[in-house]
């Protein structure tokens, strides 16, 4: 490009950016199929109703806490609405980086008039968090590599004799430690009490030791589906939506092992410190995007359960595949026979400590 051309186009870009910024609203999400489902279910209908608002996406949810903290220190918040997992929302709220929400004034009631605080119920885990979906971390296995008796118990993951081969687990202590204790004979409701002690942590690591040599550790949600598709592992943990697309969209010989799936939440927060005008616009978007119908709409595009009770009956068929989505939701009664509840408080406190131990254990 000639220097003059370059200068001209740079100037043009600056001008259009300046002109557009008046109506740009920046949403932050995870990218991929998940962000696409939000684009179709929330952003497109919202922009149709409000032609003066232009929604732009930033795929930074994975580093949202660190970035919001940096923005806060610099005094320049460039994000309007941010999609984060519940534990990050709690942390942002604790540090005063997210705005507190009053569910009954800021969020839409259910169609039958039930106030939002009841419709979301227990899922409102923080004063700043507006739940959107329930997802679960669970296992998928290769149907062609597990013999005649497919695994149906979480402890089959730890059974190298019945199911030889590699497994993929996430490269962090969360979930793995709980599963290890469950399979070491700890009752479900005592897992976190045991995990709070040094002996309990050692016990969990000892259990993980039994399969350590057969584990491939993942750090991105796309890793396990790829490892399963390539036949690198016989079973592996990941988010249930990733497994859904592997099984139903890519037609791989993989099946779900829902046993002891760990529920977690994902939702919106509004950063603290927005100007009044931007705050109102963000609240208006949130009011629209988290109403009963919109949450049910998102389930057309991805197999995550809507966070409102009133949305569940409205969940229909997949927009492209035309299959019923309800049986693929982690919250479906058939899939949720044995679930494990993630303890936010526990991990907020113990994460650094257990993570240091876990990483030291990994490096041994």
């Amino acid at each position: 490009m000639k220097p003059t051309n370059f200068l001209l186009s740079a100037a043009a870009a600056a001008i259009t950016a300046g002109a557009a910024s008046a109506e740009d609203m920046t949403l932050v999400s995870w990218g991929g199929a998940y962000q696409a489902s939000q684009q179709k279910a929330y952003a497109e209908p919202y922009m149709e109703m409000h032609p003066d608002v232009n929604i732009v996406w930033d795929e930074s949810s994975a580093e949202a806490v660190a970035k919001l903290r940096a923005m806060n220190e610099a005094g320049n918040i460039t994000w309007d609405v941010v999609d984060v997992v519940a534990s990050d929302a709690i942390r942002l709220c604790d540090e005063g980086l997210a705005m507190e929400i009053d569910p009954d004034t800021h969020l839409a009631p259910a169609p039958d008039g039930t106030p939002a605080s009841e419709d979301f119920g227990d899922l409102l885990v923080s004063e700043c968090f507006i739940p959107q979906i329930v997802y679960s971390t669970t296992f998928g296995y290769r149907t062609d590599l597990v013999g005649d008796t497919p695994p149906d118990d979480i402890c089959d993951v730890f059974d190298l004799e019945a199911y030889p081969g590699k497994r993929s687990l996430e490269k962090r202590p969360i979930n793995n430690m709980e599963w290890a204790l469950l399979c070491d004979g700890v009752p479900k409701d005592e897992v976190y009490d045991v995990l709070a002690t040094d002996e309990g942590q050692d016990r969990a690591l000892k259990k993980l030791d039994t399969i350590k040599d057969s584990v491939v550790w993942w750090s991105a949600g796309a890793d396990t589906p790829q490892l399963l598709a390539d036949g690198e592992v016989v079973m592996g943990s990941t988010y249930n939506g990733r497994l859904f697309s592997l099984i139903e969209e890519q037609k791989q010989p993989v099946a779900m092992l829902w046993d002891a799936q760990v529920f977690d939440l994902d939702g919106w927060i509004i950063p603290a410190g927005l100007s009044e005008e931007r705050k109102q616009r963000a609240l208006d978007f949130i009011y629209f995007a988290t109403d009963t119908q919109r949450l049910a709409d998102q389930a057309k595009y991805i197999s995550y359960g809507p966070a409102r009770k009133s949305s569940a009956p409205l969940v229909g068929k997949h927009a492209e595949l035309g299959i019923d989505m309800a049986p693929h939701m982690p919250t479906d009664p058939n899939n949720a026979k044995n679930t494990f509840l993630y303890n936010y408080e526990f991990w907020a406190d113990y994460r650094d400590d257990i993570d240091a131990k876990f990483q030291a254990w990994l490096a041994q």
Partner: protein
Amino acid sequence: MTDASQTAGPMLAADGTPLKQSLARSLRRQKLRALFLIAPLLIFVLVSFIVPIGSMLFRSVENSIVRDTLPLTVDALQSWDEKSGELPDENVYEAFVRDMIVAIENKEHTRLGSRLNYEETGMSSLFRRSGRQIKKLDPETDGPFKEKLIDIHDGWGDVKTWQVIKTHSVPITNGYFLNAVDMRRTPDGPRMQPEDKRILVKLFGRTLFMSLVITGACILLAYPVSYLLATQPTRVSNMLMILVLLPFWTSLLVRTSAWKVMLQQQGVINDTLVWLGLVADDARLIIINNQIGTIIAMTHILLPFMILPMYSVMQTIPPSYTRAAKSMGATNWTTFWRIYFPQSIPGIGAGSILVFILAIGYYITPEIVGGTKGVFISNRIAYHISSSLNWGLAAALGTILLAVVLILYWVYDKIVGIDNVKLG
């Protein structure tokens, strides 16, 4: 010259001013102009490099959060002997309640809790849970507070809690640096971390060791390629050059992911070996998600940084020298070892510095192909920046890494001599 000026008085310029003065003025003008010309670069380097690095260095020792959030408590704790094994007096508890009410108002107490949780597990929940109830206390009328606080959470009745607050109340701390080398601050001075939490020193050692291995592998692979590039006729060497540069122009992520496809157990290399019958199907090689994977992928990715400086140095070695050696009866090996190789050393030096320094800070490739045993210290720094938010520790680790590179550079200068490094 000096004698002359002393005896004959100052020399004058055409306009009558002393020549020295006039010369100085024009030199100053020249310097100003030079400064003006490099000003954009200078400002850029200052703003984008010196200032961030300075602020990172500062963050690794900065610790004003405890004193800023709990000013009265820190003062009151001065008179408490943390080694006595007894709880502090009522005045500390009262000061603490006053501080906390202000901190809760500003939402600062949870941030302090997270900060102290890096040192002692449970501090975060202690501050968070107690915050909701301390908010309701009135410092004027509700005293005494010692019993009340211990009722709210028995953590306030634990000597350790107050020890942690006092130990970490200094505004400038060495705590992060101690943590970075697997130690910690205690009332009795620096102590080692418990055995099962020591990880960082090991990671530093591994980072250095693997970077050296990668540099070595790059030298071995790059030398023959550079030699070919430098000695073949232009048409052939241009072709070879494109082959070297093509991967260099491809995205780092693409190349790393390609290695994943190549190296995994059901991957291209293993499939080929099994097909050739060199490896049994149930004994496929494990060459990814470990150190071997990181070394292979990073050697490939960093190879151009070794080849290019080597090539440009080898190009300047006159072929007549080797011909002269041969004409005087030297064997091929002697010619290479005594004549050619010594002249190519500056290229090896430049390439090695470049590759080693790049390797030591590598992050994304080890993350993708390194598994658990092939990751570097930078992966830990990234974890503390974006997940645990322990920026102080991340800064301390980064500072140590910077210092290690500078020391190695100095050692290299002493042994090889930085004047012997040439980029062409």
